[in-house]
């Protein structure tokens, strides 16, 4: 049978939306033979906006909205970079509060991811259940910061809100809740046969590929690369705690580097986060939370500062890097570069999807916890690499072929 290579759109604008990214999958027969990614739907030019605002303080909120999910990590990373560049270092208490916030975010984000992944494979009960459990951390975040999602807690040289004694109690309560529920979540995700069926040995990313394609975060760790900024390049309170990167072999001694391993890594990280938060609350140093309380003064200081700095934070999805360059009198940055984790985790889709099945695309893509939606521009790549826009007729023909294949397969399985 003559097989054309053709591209299929995957799940345009479905409920599990993250950052929209265009994903083109070239399929030959049953197999995926090519993957291409685009990301123009969501480009808002944040870096450019940041370089043209009035002051770095405004940019904190811009960084926060690089992503609504990693909305502590990006500002965290950015203020780190600005602090490096300007030399306004935060007090210790602020370091700890930042770590608590970042870990709360990790819990919420990993649970969110787990739910979405369950939804991708049509397991809505687990989705609902996980998100119901997630509400606890959302409440906690709201209590500590004043909003469920955007935390608006970071400030150059510290944090904006302190944690009171009452707050400490609430955090501990919340962590206790998760410790209790953890067994159940673990049981659901790691022991359910249907989840295992859909995720075991699916979307394998070998260690070599993870290195070559610069994968970061749980994705890299699930492939056996023990890479975690909190461990390798500790910042703030993590330097005191000593985080250990989690790889799937800590759970069951083997690394398959598949979707299931990514579930393991994320679930274990939730537990780790709970530990870190408990430790940080217990060891919260006293003192101020801001290096420079007076915002007007801070603004002036930043205006006069000159230098460059790199911020690195382990976001729930992996390493986040910001580069900031300040110049005297220049509003506000001379240069700002954001490198969100998904930026690096998109290319690994290619080896993960290659050779896979079409039905695996949603869960494999989701396993990197990425940003996908509106995959609606379909381009065809034929054997010679020529490209042309797909027509409906062509699509029809392909779907006809697809039926045949399916039927043949059904037939084969007699």
């Amino acid at each position, binding site marked *: 049978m003559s097989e054309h290579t053709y591209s299929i759109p995957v799940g345009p604008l479905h409920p599990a939306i993250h950052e929209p990214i265009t994903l083109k999958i070239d399929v030959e027969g049953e197999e995926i033979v090519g993957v291409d*990614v*685009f*990301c*123009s739907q969501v*480009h808002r*030019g944040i*870096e*450019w906006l940041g370089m043209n605002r009035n002051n770095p303080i405004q940019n904190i909120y811009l960084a926060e909205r690089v992503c609504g999910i990693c909305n502590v990590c990006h500002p965290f990373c950015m203020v780190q970079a600005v602090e*490096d560049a300007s030399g306004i*270092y935060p007090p*210790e208490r602020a*370091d700890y509060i930042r770590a608590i916030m970042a870990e709360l975010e990790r819990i919420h984000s990993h649970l969110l991811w787990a739910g979405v992944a369950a939804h991708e494979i049509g397991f809505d009960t687990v989705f609902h259940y996980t998100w119901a459990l997630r509400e606890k951390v959302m409440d906690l975040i709201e209590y500590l910061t004043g909003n469920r999602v955007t935390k608006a807690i970071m400030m150059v040289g510290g944090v904006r809100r302190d944690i009171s004694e009452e707050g400490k109690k609430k955090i501990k309560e919340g962590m206790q809740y998760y410790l209790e529920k953890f067994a159940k979540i673990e049981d659901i995700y790691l022991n359910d046969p249907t989840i295992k069926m859909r995720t075991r040995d699916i979307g394998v990313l070998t260690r070599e590929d993870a*290195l*070559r*394609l*610069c*994968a970061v975060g749980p994705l890299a760790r699930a492939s056996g*690369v*023990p*890479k975690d*900024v909190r*461990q*390798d*390049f*500790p*910042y*703030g*309170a*993590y*330097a*005191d705690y*000593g985080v*250990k*990167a989690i790889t799937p072999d800590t759970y069951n001694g083997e690394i398959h580097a598949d979707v299931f391993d990514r579930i393991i890594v994320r679930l274990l990280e939730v537990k780790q986060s709970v530990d870190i938060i408990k430790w940080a609350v217990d060891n919260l*140093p006293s003192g101020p939370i801001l290096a420079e309380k007076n915002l007007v003064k801070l603004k002036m200081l930043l205006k006069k500062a000159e230098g*460059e700095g*790199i911020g*690195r934070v382990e976001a729930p999805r992996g*390493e986040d*890097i910001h*580069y900031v*360059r300040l110049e005297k009198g220049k509003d506000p940055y*001379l*240069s700002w*570069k954001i*490198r969100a984790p998904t*930026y*690096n985790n*998109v*290319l690994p889709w290619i080896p993960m999807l290659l050779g896979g099945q079409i039905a695996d695309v949603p869960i494999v893509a989701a396993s990197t916890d990425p940003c996908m939606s509106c995959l609606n521009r379909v381009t065809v790549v034929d054997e010679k690499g020529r490209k042309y826009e797909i027509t409906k007729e062509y699509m029809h023909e392909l779907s006809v072929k697809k039926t045949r294949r399916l039927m043949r397969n059904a037939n084969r399985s007699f």
Partner: protein
Amino acid sequence: MDETGEIKEGEKMKVDDVVNRIKERFECEVKVKEIPCGAKKIKRTHIFVEIKREDFRKFMELLFEIQDYPHFAVISATDLGEQMELLYHFTIDYGKQNDEKTISLRIKLPKNDLRIETITDLIPGAMISEREIHEMVGVEFIGLKDTRHFFLPDNWPEGKYPWRRDETFPNDMLNKLDETWKEGDKNE
């Protein structure tokens, strides 16, 4: 491995070692920035290196000697007026407790000759970043196979680079979203 004094000592040597190896090979400026953090004031090390464009590939070779697979993070670009500064961010020695260093490699390109070799042959993961820099500031990467837009829409006008601070910036495409509704402003 835990964070005892010894290890910090060893790490320090390692940093010097790296710096020396770079200095041996290249005539360049190496800045080491150490930032203390946390209650224990543990230091993080950033190494900044500025080299000439001609030395770029050789430097990459050195990097691969220092670590079998340096992690590439991103390229940032700064428009300095006459020159375009590219900053390649790498990290080495990852995977171990508190042992990682960043190496940022600075290269200045004259505006009238914005060209540099690609590193996608060594590190395929750099593809997105090179494509981004290509579309945002117009640097040409010699040997980069895929030069399509990644972040910008397909119908983006030729020769317009949103991250430049010169006449190639698409001023006419700016959109003040908050202003669009002032016309109907009842209170005005």
